[in-house]
C-alpha cells in the first residue's frame, strides 16, 4: 500500500462479515419502497389479466404501452430533478408548445425531419429558461415552473389558437404506433427504453448521478465537497425541456394532431408516477427502476379500470389517491417507527 507510513494502521482492511451483510441486503431490499411498487405492479398486472376481459390481449398491451410512453419519457429527467430537490411543473406545457410549433412549421411547409430536430431544440431552449431562472437568479423551481407552465401553455395557444393541424403524412403517424415485428410492443417503447437505460446509467453509475443524491439531501454539504450544484441543476432542466419536446413530437404523431392543449395536465400524472415510484419529494432518494414501475403501475391500473368500464374522468380519483398514499404512507410509517423506538427505549 502506497501510504502505509501515513497513518496509524497500515494493515489491510478486513472485509465486513459476509453473513451479516447478506441479511442486511435482504432486509434492505424489502424495506425499500421501489421493491414494493414492483410487487404491487406485478399483482395488478396478474390480477387484471385474470379478471378483466381483454387486458392481456396484444392489442390492449400495445395501446397501454403507447399511452404511457409520453409519461415515461418525461418522468426520466423529472426523476433526476426531483432527486436534486427541485421540480419541473412546466413539462406538459412544453410538450404542448412543441406540438403547436410542430403544427405551424408543418403548415409552413418545412420537411418533417427538420421540424423534429427544431422542436426538440425548442424544448431544450424552454428548459434553459427554467434553468436560468432557477440557477442564475436563485428562484424556487416550484414558483418558476408554475409560471412557465402558464406561459408556455399560453404561448402554444398564441401559436396555434384553438385549431388543430392534422394532415401529417401517414407514414409518420403510422410509425408512431407501429409495433416491433409481430410483437405487441410499439417501436416508440424501444426509444423510451433506450433513454431509460441512458438515464439509469447516468443516475446510478456516474459521478454526476451520485452528486445529485448528495445535493438533494444537503446542497450545502455537496457544495463543500466540490459539487457544482447549480450547473448540474441547470443541465437537468435543459434535459427535461428537450425530452418534453421529444414527447411533444411523439404525442403529435401518435394522435396525428398538433393542438395547443396537447398533454394538458400531464405534469400531474408525471409527478404522481415519480413520487409513486419512491422518489422523495424532499429530494435525495429514489431510483429510476422504481419510477418506471410507478409509471407502469399507474398506466396499467388506469387501463384495467377503463376496460372495466370505469369512466376516464373518475380514474382521477385513483391517480390522486395513489399519489397521496405514496407520500403519506412512508411518512406515517417512519413516524410510527421512531415513536416505537422511543417507547422501547424508555422501557429498556
Amino acid at each position, binding site marked *: 500500500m502506497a*501510504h502505509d*507510513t*501515513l*497513518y*496509524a*494502521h497500515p494493515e489491510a*482492511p*478486513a*472485509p*465486513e462479515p459476509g453473513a*451479516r*451483510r447478506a441479511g*442486511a441486503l435482504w432486509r*434492505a431490499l424489502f424495506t425499500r419502497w421501489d421493491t414494493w411498487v414492483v410487487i404491487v405492479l406485478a399483482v395488478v398486472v396478474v390480477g387484471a389479466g385474470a379478471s378483466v376481459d381483454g387486458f392481456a390481449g396484444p392489442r390492449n398491451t400495445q395501446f397501454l404501452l403507447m399511452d404511457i410512453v409520453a409519461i415515461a419519457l418525461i418522468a426520466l429527467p423529472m426523476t433526476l430533478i426531483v432527486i436534486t430537490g427541485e421540480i419541473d411543473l412546466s413539462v406538459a406545457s412544453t410538450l404542448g408548445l412543441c406540438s403547436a410549433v410542430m403544427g405551424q412549421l408543418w403548415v409552413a411547409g418545412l420537411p418533417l425531419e427538420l421540424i423534429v430536430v427544431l422542436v426538440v431544440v425548442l424544448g431544450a431552449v424552454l428548459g434553459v429558461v427554467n434553468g436560468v431562472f432557477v440557477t442564475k437568479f436563485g428562484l424556487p423551481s416550484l414558483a418558476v415552473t408554475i409560471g412557465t407552465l402558464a406561459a408556455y401553455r399560453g404561448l402554444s395557444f398564441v401559436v396555434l389558437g384553438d385549431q388543430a393541424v392534422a394532415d401529417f403524412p401517414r407514414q409518420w403517424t403510422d410509425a408512431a404506433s407501429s409495433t416491433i415485428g409481430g410483437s405487441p410492443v410499439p417501436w416508440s417503447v424501444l426509444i423510451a427504453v433506450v433513454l431509460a437505460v441512458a438515464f439509469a*446509467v447516468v443516475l446510478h*453509475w*456516474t*459521478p454526476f448521478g*451520485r*452528486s445529485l*443524491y*448528495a445535493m438533494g*439531501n*444537503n446542497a*450545502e*454539504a*455537496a*457544495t*463543500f*465537497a*466540490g*459539487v*457544482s450544484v447549480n450547473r448540474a441543476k441547470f443541465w437537468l432542466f435543459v434535459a427535461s425541456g428537450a425530452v418534453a419536446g421529444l414527447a411533444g413530437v411523439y404525442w403529435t404523431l401518435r394522435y396525428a394532431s398538433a393542438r395547443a392543449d396537447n398533454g394538458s395536465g400531464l405534469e400531474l400524472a408525471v409527478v404522481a408516477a415519480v413520487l409513486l415510484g419512491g422518489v422523495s419529494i424532499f429530494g*435525495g*432518494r429514489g431510483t429510476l427502476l422504481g419510477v418506471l414501475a410507478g409509471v407502469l403501475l399507474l398506466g396499467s391500473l388506469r387501463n384495467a379500470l377503463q376496460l372495466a368500464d370505469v369512466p376516464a374522468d373518475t380514474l382521477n380519483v385513483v391517480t390522486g389517491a395513489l399519489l397521496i398514499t405514496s407520500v403519506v404512507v412512508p411518512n406515517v410509517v417512519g413516524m410510527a417507527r421512531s415513536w416505537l423506538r*422511543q417507547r422501547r*427505549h*424508555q422501557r429498556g
Partner: protein
Amino acid sequence: MAGDDAVPLLAVRDVTKSFGAVAAVAGVSFALHGGEAHALVGENGAGKSTIVKMLAGVHRPDSGAIEMDGAPLVLGSPADARAAGIAIIYQEPTLFPDLSVAENIFMGRQPLGRLRRIDKAAMKAEAEELFGRLGVHLDPDRPARGLSIADQQLVEIAKALSVDARVLVMDEPTAALSGVEVERLFAVARTLCAQGAAVLFISHRFDEVFSLCERITVMRDGRWVSTDPTADLTVDQVVRRMVGRDVSALFPKEEVEPGEVVLDVRGLTRHGVFSDVTFSVRRGEIVALAGLVGAGRSEVVRAIFGIDRLDEGEVHVDGERLPAGSPAAAMNAGLALVPEDRRQQGLVMELSIERNATLTRLGALARVGLLSGRAERRAAREWTKRLQVKYGLLADAVGTLSGGNQQKVVLAKWLATEPKVLIVDEPTRGIDVGTKAEVHRLMSRLAGQGMAVVMVSSELPEVLGMADRVLVMHEGRVTAELSRAEANEETVMFAATGQNGTAA
C-alpha cells in the same frame, strides 16, 4: 440566596437522552435555586445543548425527571416550557425574519384590545419600554430581517425579559456580543435573579462564568462531573474537570522544518466580512487562525476554498492562481476543507458512510466515466480503516455515527484526495476527548509528512499546542501574526479582542 437544603426552583434529576446509539446525556442531575445564577460548562458535545433542549420542551428525557418547586414537570412541547415560566435564549437566535421586532418579542402573547384584536400601539410601547430597560435603541417596527446577530440576540433577551421568566436559560448568548452588550445582558440577568428567578448560564468564557454565577456544574461526555460553589473553584480546576486530564498532555505537535510556500493568500477582501487578509503557509507547517467567534475566520477559509465569492484578493497554490469561486478548482489544485459545521456542511447525514467517504473523488474512482460499487466500497473501507472509524456497516447512514467518528469520516473523505493543503475549521468541535487526541496526532503527523495545514480553532489550548504560527483575527482583519514562541494566552486574547492595534 437559597441554601442547599431549600426546595430548588428547578431540578434536573438523573436525566438520560440518547439519539440512535449515541447517548447525548446520561444520568445528569443538578438543581437551580431562585435568586441564583448557575453555570453549566463542558466541552462542545458534552451534552449541554441537549439539557437546554429538554428544558425548552424540544426533547423529552428518555429517563429521569425535571422538577419545579419539588413537583414533577412534564415538558412535552415548547408551549409547556413557556407556560412553566422557562425562557430560553439560544446560541443561534430564533427570530421570524419577516415580522417586526415587536412582534418577534410578543408572538403568541401580544397585548389585546377590543374584540381581542392585537393592540399594536401597546405592543410597540411595551417593546420600547423593554429596550429602554436594556438601554438600547431598536426600532420595534422594523423587520427582524437584516438585524445583526448581536441585535437579534438583544431581541431574544427582550423576549425573555417580557415573560417575567422564573427560569432563564442562556445557551452561549454572548458569543456575538460586545463587552458593553454582555454587561447589559448580565445586568438583566442579575435583576431577574434579584426578583427571585433562577438563571442557567452556559458559556465557554470563564471570566463571564466566574463573574456572573454562584455555582458551576461541569459536564463531560454527556455525564455529570461536579457541582460546586464558584467560590471554591479555580479556572484551572474547572478546565481539568471539563477535559478529564491535564491539558498540556493533549497536544503533541512534532517539530518540523518547514518547506517551500504552498498556499499564498494575498489581500483577501469580502466587503463587510473581512478585509485585506494576507498570509502564506509552508509545507510541514500548521498555521492557526485564532480569534473570537464572528471574527471572520471561517469566512476567510470558505473564500479561499471558493465557497464564498471574493470582492478582492488572490489565492495561489504552488504559485498558480486559483480561479475564484470554484471549490472544484480548489480541489484540483490540492486544497481540502474540513468545514466548521459537520452536520450541515461536512457530511450528507442521510447518505451512507461509503457515499460520504467517496463523495470528494468520484471522478477518480470512475472508470470510463462509470462507477462500480466495488471500487467505491474498497476505497471507503480503506480510508475508514486508516482513520479507525468505528461503524457497523458501510451502508449505514453516516448520521448514526458518534460525533468523533463522523469527524473521522469527513477527514477520511478529504485525506483521500491527497491534498497539499489541508484546511480544518474547528477540527475537534463536539467530539470526545479520545478522538480529539487522535485528530491532533493525525494533523501533526500529516504536517510531519509535508502537508501544509491551516487550522481555524476557537479553543486556545488547541491553538497554542498545535500551531507553528498563529494568525489572530479581530473584526475581519488580521491583527497579529505570532510565532510559536510569541504565542500565549495573553498575546492571542489581546489581539483577538482588538486591544492590540498594531500587528506584531
